[in-house]
């Protein structure tokens, strides 16, 4: 088996606040891999550490945040051990990023060509007509019509979808092996979203670039990704191939996420996971999800579940998987793995 492009092992990232008094473990032992040309979806609620994980990969952390452990092996090199000058050469050239808001991702004072060409200029030393042709090719590859005209326009002359494409072109400009897309379609409307995703998928197929796709939209994951990792409170609670996760989710959180996808035509009230994501400063003991979990039992609040191997590439952090849940006399021996009655059995005080 060949070496994966990116291999993240036990990545830990913590914010230290109040002069070290409080330590928030925003990313806690995240491990995942991405192969060349593969698309990994990273899903989870807001604040579960998705974006922070990605910024840790690039070592672009806000003040007070520190990587406290783990390894990020990218193409055989541990990025966390690289000197910062070499890290700068990785950013943009090997790993690029697409941010959420196309309105804010472009500098209003520079033309599209200037911004799209920047990584190529900086990392690949392209100048003059080479650069110009490259920019046109990039804009064409993200399906911006008449790129030779539009390249000299300013961001305000473009629509949101167009700008997000331009941001995509910037990401491709350095010729990266991996693009981290941080909710790239959240701010686009649905039709544009579909176009954008098709474009991205197509681009990925043609260039063979790997994608780390952050989103909270499981529908997009199903369409775009080969594998999914589900994050909760800084930990990856379950990961596996998309079909496997969707058809046979093992972690109650994954199950709950899947049941909270709105279904067209359904008259049932939309399912919401009770409670709130936990405060990272006061994580519940044991499994962080246990206060909101429908299938919680004694061991959950006492011991943190380890990562169980469930099959090829399928892993979950849950004691249920271990089969150690005692048989509940009230359900007469049947272990309920559905979530249909969760909202009734565990009403949240906050909602």
């Amino acid at each position, binding site marked *: 088996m060949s070496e994966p492009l990116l291999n993240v092992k036990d990545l830990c990232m913590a914010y230290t606040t109040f002069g070290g008094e409080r330590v928030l473990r925003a990313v806690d032992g995240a491990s995942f891999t991405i192969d060349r040309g593969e698309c990994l979806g990273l899903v989870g609620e807001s604040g579960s550490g998705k974006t922070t994980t990605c910024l840790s990969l690039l070592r672009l952390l806000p003040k007070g945040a520190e990587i406290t452990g783990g390894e990020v092996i990218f193409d055989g090199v541990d990025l966390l051990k690289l000197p910062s000058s070499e890290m700068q050469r990785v950013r943009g050239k090997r790993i690029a990023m697409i941010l959420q808001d196309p309105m804010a991702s472009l500098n209003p004072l520079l033309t599209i060509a200037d911004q799209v060409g920047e990584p190529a200029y*900086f990392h690949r030393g392209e100048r003059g007509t080479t650069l110009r042709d490259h920019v046109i090719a990039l804009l064409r590859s993200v399906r911006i019509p008449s790129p030779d005209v539009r390249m000299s326009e300013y961001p305000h002359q473009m629509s949101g979808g167009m700008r997000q494409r331009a*941001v995509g072109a910037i990401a491709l400009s350095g010729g990266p092996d991996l693009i981290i897309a941080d909710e790239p379609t959240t701010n686009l409307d649905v039709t544009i979203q579909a176009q954008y995703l098709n474009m991205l998928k197509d681009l990925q197929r043609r260039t063979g670039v790997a994608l780390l796709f952050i989103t909270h939209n499981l529908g997009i994951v199903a369409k775009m990704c080969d594998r999914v990792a589900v994050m909760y409170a800084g930990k990856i609670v379950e990961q596996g191939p998309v079909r496997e996760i969707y058809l046979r989710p093992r972690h109650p959180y994954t199950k709950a996420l899947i049941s909270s996808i709105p279904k067209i035509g359904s008259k049932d009230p939309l399912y919401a996971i009770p409670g709130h994501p936990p405060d990272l400063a006061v994580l519940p003991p044991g499994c962080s999800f246990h206060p909101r979990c429908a299938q919680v039992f004694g061991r959950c609040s006492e011991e943190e579940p380890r990562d169980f191997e469930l099959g090829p590439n399928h892993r979950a952090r849950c004691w249920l998987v271990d089969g150690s849940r005692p048989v509940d006399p009230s359900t007469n021996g049947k272990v309920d793995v559905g979530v249909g009655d969760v909202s009734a059995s565990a009403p949240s005080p906050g909602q």
Partner: protein
Amino acid sequence: MAVEARPLPYAPTADFVPARAAKIVREIPLVPSLVLALLVFTALFAGLLAPHDPTLPVAGGGVFKPPVWMDGGSMNTPFGTDFQGRDVLSRLLYGARVTLMVAVTGTAFAGGIGMLLGIVAGYFGGWVDQAIMRLTDTWLALPSLVFAIFLAALLQEKINQLTFFLPAGVGNIILVFGLIYWTRYARVIRGEVLTLRERDYVRLAQVAGLSQARIIIRHIVPNVLNTWMVLASLTVGVVIINEASLSFLGLGVQAPTPAWGNMLSEARRTLMAGQWWLTVLPGICISVVVLAANLFGDWMRVKLDPKQRNL
């Protein structure tokens, strides 16, 4: 009754002037722009416009000759002569040169220091930011004119020889204003940079692996230039007034070189003796130019601020 075709209340804009350019031209405040244009013109062409040498007595002119419209005035010296018999008009024209030189370079120098420190403080943050901003606070706590006098006196002792190609004292003054007025730029620009630093396009540039210097030059500087220009245009007036004050006190432009401030200073002794034109004329020049600079700066502030333009 037949309806007559009436002429349009406004003539349609001629085709050869682009609509946007025409709009901008129409909105420029006319009087302040004219005053400033006149200042620049006089400063550039003082040598051609001035009828006499500003530093030498006019031959056969006599001292304290009144302006042309008073008894005893002559067309040879339209604004009269001073206590040495030098032509006041020529001195005013050459004074415009000093004023413009000090106003532009002093402002630019202060703006340069301020922008540099403001960007460094805002972009890098942490203790650098703390150090620069506390220095700025300390600087701002000192009354600017008193501080200017102190610095000017200090510089006069030390480096008055370093005049470069400038008239005596002008280099000093520029240095003094640079060292005093950078604070307002540093503060405002730091604030601006703090918000710019968090913008997604700056983040994206970081993710794209651009160097700090390149991010600053490409993404930060162009975005603070707007603010910088407004600050500069509002500083010009202050610099002109303080240049006059320093020259009046003898710490600015040195004696033979005419400046509006030292003209006032020389006329001080004879103010009560009836030679009013020696004080009033430079005084008017200073007031009008400062007023024009401030009005222009004000217009620019409104014009360059999208919030005030209601966009």
